[in-house]
């Protein structure tokens, strides 16, 4: 294990370095090294994951750490570069390496004609390395390093088409908005060190949980909120959500891998890692739940009206991430990770499928110029339909189980408001997903005349990953929850679900503090009613979408009715405009940071050049003509000097009183 675990991250790093060095010369063959590196990394990771989850040696209850080197030996601040595999990391490894590998393979087809072919694969490998270190980091600071490195990879990949200024702007925005969250995360790490004297994740949590909360200089609620601030940046939670939709400027495989399946989940991973800290600060958990569910409904409301296929999916990603934080906040921790896994595969699938659509219609992303594609690109259509059914919450697809568990547990754990909002979000989700399917695949074709004859299904190198992800997003839910509820009892089997069993040691400390055991979920009684409610609302959303945007599944046939869509949006003009304009957050931020911030910066520069520098030059000139005394007083501006002297005297008197009065 001492070589295998570092190898997981080292392989993509080697792939990046080699490709960065010689990739340009490899031309169209540049994908081999990176893809093989990730494939090998996937293989190694699967071995490690299997060993870790089975609890075989050398893995203990709380995992196994490989120490690499003393990274920062600074007196009593010692940071080791070390990698940790515990069950939480193992679960994440499954998602990251599997989706990562499939996206790499898919990119061979998707990026085939791009002049920056080798550069793309080099960046992808850099991302894989960073993301794997993030998952495997054994100390807060190692995680932070990887946290910033995934930010860098994301920056490079969003801005991959650097000649497009919209891409350059989006990449910069993503990095800077993430930095806002990172300030919180960095301060949280500092607070952890001040509180515990260590930056090792497990050691610091042991210290934090073994002593009375009053023993710490920095209140633990503050620590929790600071860490959550970091999570909000990376996982794009309100009000830091603004970067993610713009990040769709990057090539679609990037949107799938980074901005749907892996990196954006890092925030959820982080709070799960820190679960005992949050458990010690219930008020912080309420904040997490509130921000999560608010982001969920905010993003869902925007997704209803967007016309860019990738943007709909981006807002849907935001919304589902909001679900995960809501789950974490109410205490449904296993459900949060369950949803993370289900979404990792489902959203990865949907984005890759949307890429296949975009590919088919020659880089068109506007769904108003699509339609009727079902017969032209059948593999893409079918896989995307599977993904959408999952998103809508139709059993037995993976996202049904995970979403249902989030909603059900919110209700049972006494967060009825989270449940109620979550139900509304569920209706919206089913609606906008089938609006997307309806506009894209069903009805008449609205594709550009010139492009129409050239529509083609993507090559196998792209459709095979789609099908693999589709199969995963069908079966994952059953597999991970078996034999736990709700399916187990139905077949007369008892016991915790597979995932719940894996995560038990991860959450043990936190749950003990929280003083609760995760709610057991059963099919009958109140839980059964909850399941029925969520299936019912999913169906309602679906039917609503079908009535407005049509349907063509087997015997289900209905034409789209654009006139009713128009009538409906005219009835609520404000809400419609708000949704279309994304609740004007971009405009608000522009006003605050570009217009007002820019003026502040300009004023400070003026202050620097004229006032600070001016005083210096003034002192110089006064010294030079000291013989002339206060010659400048005689320039007829005596009142100006009088004002200066008066204010100087006021400051003098005021500060004297303040200092002497202490």
């Amino acid at each position, binding site marked *: 294990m001492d070589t295998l675990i570092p190898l997981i991250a080292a392989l993509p790093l080697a792939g990046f370095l080699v490709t960065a060095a010689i990739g340009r010369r490899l031309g169209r063959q540049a994908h081999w090294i990176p893809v093989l590196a990730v494939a090998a990394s996937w293989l190694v990771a699967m071995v490690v994951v299997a060993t870790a989850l089975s609890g075989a040696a050398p893995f203990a209850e709380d995992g196994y750490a490989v120490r690499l080197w003393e990274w920062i030996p600074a007196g009593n601040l010692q940071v080791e570069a070390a990698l940790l595999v515990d069950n939480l990391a193992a679960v994440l490894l499954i998602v990251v390496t599997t989706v990562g590998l499939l996206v790499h393979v898919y990119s061979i087809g998707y990026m085939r004609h791009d002049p920056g072919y080798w550069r793309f694969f080099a960046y992808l490998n850099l991302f894989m390395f960073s993301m794997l270190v993030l998952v495997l980091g054994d100390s807060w600071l190692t995680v932070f390093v990887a946290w910033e490195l995934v930010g860098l990879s994301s920056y490079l990949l969003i801005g991959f088409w650097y000649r497009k200024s919209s891409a350059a702007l989006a990449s910069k925005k993503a990095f800077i908005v993430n930095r806002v969250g990172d300030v919180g995360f960095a301060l949280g790490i500092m607070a952890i060190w001040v509180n515990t004297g260590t930056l090792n994740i497990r050691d610091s949590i042991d210290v934090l949980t073994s002593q009375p909360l009053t023993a710490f200089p920095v209140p633990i609620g503050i620590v929790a909120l600071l860490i959550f601030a970091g999570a909000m940046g990376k996982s794009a939670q309100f009000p830091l959500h603004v970067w993610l939709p713009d990040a769709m400027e990057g090539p679609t495989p990037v949107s799938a891998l980074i901005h749907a399946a892996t990196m954006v989940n890092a925030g959820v991973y982080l709070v799960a890692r820190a679960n005992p800290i949050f458990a010690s600060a219930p008020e912080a958990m309420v904040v997490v739940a509130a921000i999560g569910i608010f982001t969920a409904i905010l993003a869902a409301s925007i997704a209803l009206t967007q016309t860019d296929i990738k943007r709909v999916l981006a807002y849907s990603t935001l919304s589902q991430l909001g679900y995960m934080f809501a789950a974490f906040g109410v205490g449904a921790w296993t459900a949060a990770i369950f949803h993370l896994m289900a979404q990792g595969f489902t959203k990865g699938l949907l984005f890759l499928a949307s890429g296949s659509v975009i590919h088919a219609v020659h880089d068109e992303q506007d769904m108003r110029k699509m339609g009727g594609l079902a017969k032209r690109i059948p593999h893409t259509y079918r896989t995307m339909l599977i993904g959408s059914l999952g998103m809508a919450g139709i059993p037995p697809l993976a996202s049904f189980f995970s979403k249902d568990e989030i909603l059900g547990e919110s209700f049972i754990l006494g967060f009825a408001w989270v449940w109620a909002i979550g139900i509304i979000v569920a209706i919206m989700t089913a609606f906008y997903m089938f609006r997307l399917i309806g506009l894209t695949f069903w009805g008449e074709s609205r594709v550009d005349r010139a492009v129409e004859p050239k529509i083609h299904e993507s090559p196998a190198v792209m459709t095979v990953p789609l099908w693999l992800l589709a199969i995963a997003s069908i079966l994952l839910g059953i597999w991970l929850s078996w034999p736990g509820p709700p399916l187990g009892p139905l077949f007369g089997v008892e016991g915790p679900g597979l995932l719940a069993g894996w995560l038990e040691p991860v959450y043990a400390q936190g749950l003990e503090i929280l003083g609760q055991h995760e709610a057991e979920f059963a099919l009958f009684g109140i839980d059964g009613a909850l399941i029925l409610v969520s299936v019912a609302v999913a169906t309602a959303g679906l039917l609503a979408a079908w009535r407005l945007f049509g349907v063509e599944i087997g015997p289900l046939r209905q034409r789209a009715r654009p006139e009713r869509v128009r009538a409906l949006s005219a009835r609520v003009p404000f809400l419609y405009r708000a949704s279309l304009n994304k609740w004007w957050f971009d405009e608000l931020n522009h006003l605050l940071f570009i217009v007002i911030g820019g003026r502040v910066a300009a004023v400070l520069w003026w202050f620097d050049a004229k006032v600070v520098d001016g005083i210096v030059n003034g002192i110089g000139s006064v010294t030079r003509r000291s013989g002339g005394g206060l010659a400048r007083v005689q320039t007829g501006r005596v009142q100006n000097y009088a004002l200066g002297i008066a204010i100087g005297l006021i400051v003098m008197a005021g500060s004297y009183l303040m*200092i002497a009065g202490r």
Partner: protein
Amino acid sequence: MNGLPILSLITFLPLAGALVVALLPARFARPVALAAALLAWVASLLLVVGFSPERDGLFQFVEELSWIPLFGIEYKLGVDGLSLVLVVLTTTLTWISILASFKPIQTRIKEYMVSFLILEVGMIGVFLALDAFLFYIFWEIVLVPMYLIIGIWGGANRIYATIKFVLYTLVGSLLMLVAILATAFAFQAANGSDWTGAFDFEALRELATAGGGFDPTLQLLAFGAFFLAFAIKVPMFPFHTWLPDAHVEAPTAGSVILAGVLLKLGGYGFIRWTLSLYPDAAQTFAPAIIVLSLIAIIYGAIVALVQPDLKKLVAYSSVSHMGFVTLGIFVFQPQAMAGAILQMFSHGLITGALFLLVGVIYERTHDRTIAKMGGLAARTPVYATILGFFVFASAGLPGLSGFVGEFLTLVGTFAANPWAAVVATFVMILGAAYLLWMFQRVVTGEPSVFLASLGHRLTDISPVEILTLAPLGALVVVFGILPGILLDTIDGSITSSLRDAGTGTAIALDPLVVAIGLGLVAAAVVVRVVTLPTGARPAAAENGS
């Protein structure tokens, strides 16, 4: 150790090189100067090999010769971890700067190389001198060649910039001389009129920390004088306005040394001289210095945001980054001070590289205006990649050296004063903002009209230019991954400096004096603002997100 005077060798090797350059014809100036600088560099690396970090904070390779025995003035050199790190930084940046000057400098090449080598003598001497008078001599030696380098080989407005630079630094250093003399006088008075050791750092420190310390009034005044000299060099807000002007006018290599080494003279001086000799005064002024550092960190970054000129942007980023140095020193906390020293070192590497990179583009375009650039990635991809690397290094990307220094400073500050750390941490956003905005405007998009008009003259970075940047990039990576090399070296210096500082207790200041000081500052600002001509109001920031 007791055979070869290696410290003198390192210090005066460049001087020997300067003499050879002066005697030989001009066509030999470049190779000889480079050879001399490389020799000094090799010698400094030998010093690294011979240095034993485990000898806690003691000076090693000490050389002592009586110089002016009447006043106890000695020629005394010695090295500890702190000075070792900065000497290596100096010798590294000097040969790189000389190599980077080969092409841009075409006039009076002999004089240029002689100035550069003498500059190196002064800088190394400052870091190694253990006699206050000798320290002062080296300190002033630095000034002259830098004056010449900017004044002769500088840009259009070089005379204004040099006069400002010289007057500014001279004001500080002359007051420092007075303080050195006053301290020596107090020492001999305390020692029964015996001048022996009156300028010796170790003897002075002994008296200042273990021997009861200097008189509070002397401490306050002497600290004030040293503070002015060092604060101007660092430069701390509000003594920084000479820096953007000097940078803009200086030739590329001059900027590299100015930012890379000269600014560190101030940081070094604070740690070596003020903490150990005037611990009470240091404790007294620490809160004010922390506030000024925080202002420098945030204010420097905000002003950098709106700079239209690449060099000015990097200059203001230096103000911001050096704020971390003074912050880390004056919170008197081991991690923070380690961070401050690391920050000095890595700022030297990264900002040095950024100035070299600005020089590369200036060589081709004879322009540094950000608004005229754009789309460099399409025209000069290798240059764009290297620029990107150092831009992220400067923004404190973890895994590179800048991060470790910044993080240690912040975490140490957090332990001592959480609110100061909260304020300083916000530079993570501002730093990313001004650097990435610059990067976006210069590198991404379609090539600008201006750059397109240059045609084939806009070539990608040349191998020699890469050779000047590669060692810096390598060091940035190495010290990002293995900062332990530096941390182990400086550990002893940190411990002893903090021990010295810790012996101090803040002197109670007369509230009246403080109030008068604040009142004078307020009056000066108000008078300045109201007497400005009405046309000099702030212009709106150039928009374009």
